[in-house]
């Protein structure tokens, strides 16, 4: 049984990487604007459908569609933030929940209307299929690609946040938006750019996820729980926390399904409850 452990762990890390990519935008939005955005999954779904349409209708190769999916979702995020989200930052959590739930329903209905309620297939390029043997373990090529890509993006994000001025502005705004505004930081612009970036990353994640998680109009609702889980457990606004939570949840979910499939689905919720009890503010803030 333990001979399979490295394989299972790798699968868990791959799944977790995908979760991270899709959830990091939500985490920063919640940490920065304190906005509960249940519609985050809709941006991921948009990225997925853009990718499918681009490949099927326009014949664009998969790898080229990835940045396009990012751009499409980012553009949608930018527009929605400026027109709608911006007006709700100071509203009650209930209002935010309702608004984003409404947006989600509209996106699900829209996707059903345009593409029908079935699964969208995606045909990956040949060089991303199959398995390779790495250090004695059979790993899927596509999952290896996922982990590598997400790793690179994470490194880029960390660089952005730690080493650039813009990153410093983000960190300041997360810590205290009012004080930052008082220091002359254009907090509105920081919000806008981060929301755009977060939505774009979600769209990229959605496109990458088609092969692993599937794509259909109910995607935003199906995976909403996982995104929220990651953000709440990892602590909103923290890259390190979100990454840790994603990997943890990914590994536990996959291992749970592999080793104890009878309770596989429970493992992830049980883990969430335990972590929330121990760390009410999320992993980042540590135990109270």
């Amino acid at each position, binding site marked *: 049984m333990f001979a399979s452990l490295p394989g299972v762990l790798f699968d868990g890390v791959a799944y977790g990487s995908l979760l991270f990519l899709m959830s990091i935008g939500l985490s920063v939005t*919640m940490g920065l604007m304190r906005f509960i955005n249940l519609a985050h999954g809709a941006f991921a779904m948009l990225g997925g459908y853009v990718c499918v349409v681009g490949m099927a209708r326009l014949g664009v190769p998969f790898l080229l569609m990835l940045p396009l999916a990012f751009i499409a979702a980012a553009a949608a995020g930018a527009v929605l933030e400026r027109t709608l989200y911006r007006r709700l930052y100071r509203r009650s*959590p209930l209002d935010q929940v309702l608004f984003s739930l409404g947006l989600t*329903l*509209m*996106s*699900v209905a829209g996707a059903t209307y345009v593409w029908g309620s079935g699964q969208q297939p995606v045909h990956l390029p040949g060089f991303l299929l199959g398995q390779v043997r790495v250090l004695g373990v059979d790993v899927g090529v596509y999952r290896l690609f996922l982990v590598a890509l997400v790793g690179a993006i994470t490194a880029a994000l960390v660089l952005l946040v730690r080493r650039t001025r813009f990153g410093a502005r983000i960190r300041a705004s997360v810590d205290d938006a009012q004080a930052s505004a008082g220091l002359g930081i254009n907090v509105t612009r920081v919000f806008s750019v981060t929301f755009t970036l977060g939505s774009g990353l979600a769209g990229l994640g959605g496109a990458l996820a088609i092969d692993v998680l599937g794509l259909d109009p109910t995607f935003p609702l199906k995976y909403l729980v996982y995104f*929220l889980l990651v953000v*709440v457990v990892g602590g909103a606004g923290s890259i390190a926390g979100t990454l840790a939570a994603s990997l943890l949840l990914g590994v536990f979910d996959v291992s749970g399904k592999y080793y104890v499939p009878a309770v596989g689905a429970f493992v992830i*919720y049980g883990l969430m409850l335990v972590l929330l009890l121990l760390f009410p503010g999320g992993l980042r803030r540590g135990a109270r």
Partner: protein
Amino acid sequence: MSAAPAVALPDARWRPAEVAFWLAAVAAIFVFPGHLVLGSQVLITGLFALSLDLILGYAGIVSLGHAAMFGAGAYTAGLLAKHGWGEPLSGLLAAAAVGAVIAWATSFIAVRGEDLTRLMVTLGIGLMLYEAANQAASVTGGVDGLSDMAVRDLLGLFPFDLAGRTAYVYSLAVLFAVFLVCRRIVRSPFGLSLRGIRDGARRMPAIGSPVRRRLIAVYTVAGAIAGVAGALLAQTTQFVGLEVLGFSRSADLLIMLVLGGAGWLYGGLVGAALFMIAQSQLSSINPVYWQFWLGLLLVAMVFAARGGVVGAAAAARERLLRRAAR
């Protein structure tokens, strides 16, 4: 009332609009005899919404997992009826107890933390209970549902008929009884303290109000009521499906309550009626349109109509009164 109380408790008299509401509900038995099945399901959902109103509208807890108590109550009544105890009223009491216990047990993690944490916890508990019921398929019937319920005649006299009349009267009676209790609660000092917690929980300890205890108490009561609603559904349909514990039941309920207006007690009832009637009419035309327009309505409501239907009606009434007073 003898001496005027030192603190002005909300007026306990019945407004004409309230009386009209309940009379209309009774009249429906005669005016819409062919729609009583839908009617009883509207009443049951209204009862469920009432229980959410207590914790959301009055205590400010946003829950996405309220179906957990509803489903627990439904399965309780269902299992009792299936295994020989078919008496309806005692089934309701058992369901209330189970709903209360589950609410109480989970209240410790559900009421603490910030809004997002509470949302996640309630959501997670709901999902876990759903999975548990699915796993325990030998007991609950899993996805196939619990059937073969032998619910006995109500009060030994009234069998549950095909047209749904007994079900409707039963649901209406239970709803009214519970409503009276809730009305009493929210107009009491306890109810006022809940509103204080909703509006500013940090300040409450300063006036000596035990926040956590109050929240746990109201959460438990709401759980009991949700359990009763679930049991009603099980008994009147003689069936318990797994989706009584599902996420969409919790989410739809939240939408209904907000549509009608949280914090008025009637908001849940009005919202449930509007939502379910609209849904049964519109989704037979085209279900995709229903979902889209519902989403659009929610977005529009957040920007325009704060307070839902009842809230808007109350605001309109205020304006009319003010104009009349000039």
